[in-house]
């Protein structure tokens, strides 16, 4: 059943059940993936998946919802019936409506949709990549975590007032995590992830090189003394931290009391005036971009921090109504509508104010800790309290030398971290989760084994 047929079926079934107001979101996907083990195909996977989420409003304007993978005529009828039953338990304290922007025009963005290259080609490409990575250094013995996949999907939003949006796209992903071993040393591991619109768009050589360089650079390691250090966050690690504490900008989290911000936090100074942060789901470098959110609201660029001060929150339809503003295109589609950022872009503002511009990760000769990648975010972040304690991969730069740090954590408070940003480097880097320059922070606690 295609999206037009689903809309017709839902309209018919809703009429039969006397449901006047409904909307739905659907996704259809075909995914192919391969994994290899020392030149041999390990697991080859293909999946065809369909998911339909239907919301209905009952006569008291309370909302009920059901999600199903059964997109048959009977499945749709059953889903509507269940959603209708669930609407008896709809949230009386906070209403949900259609997004007022669900019919607004969507900003044109060139859709780069590729054709499948097929499992055999995926396998060939991954086998070659594995061989090259192992051959890149004598210490790299295996690539235990690897995969190459391509996905083709369509997403749809429609409602009973005639809104209808759909888009389809393709995406491919490659990940290579190498394991290096040297005599009398612990094994070390690191890797790289690259995305593309199709398998042919992925820069496989860059992925191999990055995985190899990162892994090799951790071969000579040492434990670090517990202390406070000057820290340089890589673009990837800084984006990880900002995403982990994005509840500061999230209206849903503010209403739920799990954010460090409150309704009056717009204008609050969080950081140096040199810091700007945007959420920009439509950014040309964002391969995972979607033109509309779960409620059909168009995606757009939104300034979250302007010159160090909170400028905007991200919203769904209901949170926007409560805050007397408009939805921002960040909603999911659920019984309780979630709100989440799309793609964070960190920038240095045009005026550089009070930055210590001598701090540059490629030239600075003083002592500092470079945090390449933060781990275990789900375990080490207390977003509602603002604290974090996270293991990381990185290096200690000291006396002109760098050495990989063994088993250490960085701990602190997000507000302290933002307030103590001492430099924002000029050059931005594109990562899989956003764009950011290197960010320097003074005096964060590192715990190590030394």
């Amino acid at each position, binding site marked *: 059943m295609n999206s037009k047929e689903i809309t017709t079926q839902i309209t018919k079934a809703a009429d039969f059940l006397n449901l006047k107001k409904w909307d739905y979101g659907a996704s259809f996907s075909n995914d192919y993936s391969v994994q290899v083990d020392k030149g041999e195909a390990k697991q080859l996977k293909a999946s065809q*998946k369909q998911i339909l989420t239907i919301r209905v409003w009952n006569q008291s304007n309370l909302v009920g919802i059901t999600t199903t993978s059964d997109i048959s005529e009977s499945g749709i009828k059953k889903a509507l019936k269940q959603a209708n039953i669930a609407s008896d338990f709809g949230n009386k304290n906070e209403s949900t409506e259609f997004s007022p922007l669900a019919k607004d025009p969507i900003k044109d963005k060139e859709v780069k949709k590729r054709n499948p290259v097929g499992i055999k080609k995926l396998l060939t490409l991954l086998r070659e990549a594995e061989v090259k990575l192992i051959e890149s250094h004598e210490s790299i013995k295996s690539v235990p975590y690897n995969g190459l996949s391509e996905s083709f999907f369509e997403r749809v939003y429609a409602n009973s007032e005639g809104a209808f949006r759909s888009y389809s796209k393709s995406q491919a992903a490659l990940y290579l995590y190498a394991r290096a071993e040297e005599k009398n040393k612990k094994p070390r591991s690191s890797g790289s992830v690259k995305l593309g619109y199709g398998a042919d768009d992925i820069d496989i050589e860059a992925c191999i090189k990055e995985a190899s360089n990162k892994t090799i650079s951790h071969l000579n390691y040492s434990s670090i003394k517990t202390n406070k250090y000057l820290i340089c966050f890589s673009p990837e690690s800084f984006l990880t931290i900002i995403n982990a504490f994005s509840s500061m900008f999230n209206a849903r989290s503010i209403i739920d009391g799990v954010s460090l911000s409150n309704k009056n936090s717009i204008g609050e100074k969080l950081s140096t005036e040199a810091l700007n942060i945007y959420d920009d789901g439509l950014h040309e470098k964002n391969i995972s971009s979607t033109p509309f959110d779960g409620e059909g609201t168009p995606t757009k660029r939104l300034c979250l921090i302007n010159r160090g001060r909170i400028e905007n929150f991200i919203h769904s339809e209901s949170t926007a109504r409560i805050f007397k503003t408009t939805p921002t295109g960040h909603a999911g589609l659920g019984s309780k509508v979630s709100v989440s950022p799309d793609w964070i872009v960190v920038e240095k503002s045009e005026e550089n104010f009070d930055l210590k511009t001598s701090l540059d990760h490629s030239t600075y000769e003083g002592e500092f800790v470079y945090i390449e990648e933060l781990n275990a975010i789900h375990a080490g972040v207390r977003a509602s309290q603002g604290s974090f304690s996270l293991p990381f991969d990185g290096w200690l730069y000291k006396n002109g030398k760098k050495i990989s740090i063994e088993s250490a954590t960085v701990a602190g408070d997000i507000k302290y971290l933002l307030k103590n940003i001492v430099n924002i480097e000029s050059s931005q880097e594109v990562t899989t989760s956003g764009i950011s320059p290197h960010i320097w922070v003074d005096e964060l606690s590192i715990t190590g*084994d030394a």
Partner: protein
Amino acid sequence: MLSSQIKSNEIVFGSCNKDLLEEIIFYGIGLGADFVEIFIENTDNSSVLAEEDFITSVSPSFGRGAGIRIFKGKKDGFVSTNDLTKHGLMRSVSQAIEMLDITDNKKEVFNGLNQHRDYSLSKKKWINEVPSIHEISEKLLLSTKSLKKNNKIITRKGSYSRNLQEVIIASSDGTYASDIRLHQTVGLNVIASDAQYRSSGSRRFGSSGMPNEFRLWDHEKSANDVFESSMNMLYADYVDAGQMPVVLANKFGGVIFHEACGHLLETTQIERGTTPFENKLNEKIAHESVTAIDEGISEGSFGSLSVDDEGMEPEKSVLIKDGILKKFISDRAGELRTGHKRTGSGRRQNYSFAAASRMRNTYIAKGEHSKEDLINSISEGLYCKSMGGGSVGATGQFNFAVEEGYLIKNGKLTSPVKGATLIGEAKEVMPKISMCGNDLELAPGFCGSISGSVNVTVGQPHIKVDSITVGGR
């Protein structure tokens, strides 16, 4: 005539699908597969969320799908689909065969499916015995009301989820089984705040195969526990980092063994070459006080199963006996690729994942000491009463957040501390577990890994680790 034709051309839950399943398997074997496995599921789930004094979310869902796995030699191809018609299933088999590039003419023999092992017979009534949304809502609201004990509690949440999964498993070695699984969980969360101080508290409870369990849940006791935890931690100082002895509490304290050691005993880790224990069978890998078990048979436990997702009844596996490594956790692919016998541990989140060797109810067996013995033996250290989540890196290093911790001074518990993280490596920490308490208790959890998120139980008695790195500020 029409009715029987429809039945034979589509999987129908609750009916005999033997002819259709055999036809699909014959088709795969005929095309040159060494082994064909079909996993089919039908799900009926619901979840309810109470916030403060309101129900804010009721989310039912249902679905069905099939996962088809073909082996040729040690390679496997896996295809999942929502199309349960004969045509859809055969198309999936063809796709898997094509992916594996099977061209040889060597044909395995398929002698048809064995007698149906139906584990679902006594479970078909469960769907009518589980609590209604109305009943769930009322009890969740009572629980969030119970959390409202003072004005420092600024956020109160109660959540419930119920997953009912009907499965059919058939494969070319004759396996033919079906089952119904029921999992229920309920959780409570609070955030407490006073001026600049903030803390949180949470607990989760869960069961399998016990439709009445939610009705028996003592929400007052749970609410008191969560409230006390958040109050104890509200004004806590940050812990000082360093190396120190720690005592880990029972129940969810077992998450460290699960993450740091249990995963390294799954055959998937041997396949990847990422476990330091690969060649250590019958060697000492832990302190002699440690015996560790993984099983799927404890009645009502969150990780228990009547049959695994590959059609094998789960066994009780003694992984470590008195510090000596005795067994790995294995599934079909693990047995094929590593030689370790299957343990009834082939598990997957749903039809869209191929099964893999996964833990079930995993715990350190009880010892002979009291909790006080452990604490009294430490002059300066940390007591980890409640653990948060954690992770294990690709080379075995682990880290875990301590949700509720207390300093130990001169054998006594003293002030609460927050922000602690335990950091280490299984190979180095296992020999340092020097004392095990006599108070083994289990706790439910969700484990995410190669075959998705599965229900598990972690557990242990109170244990003492002689020295571990504690991250703090």
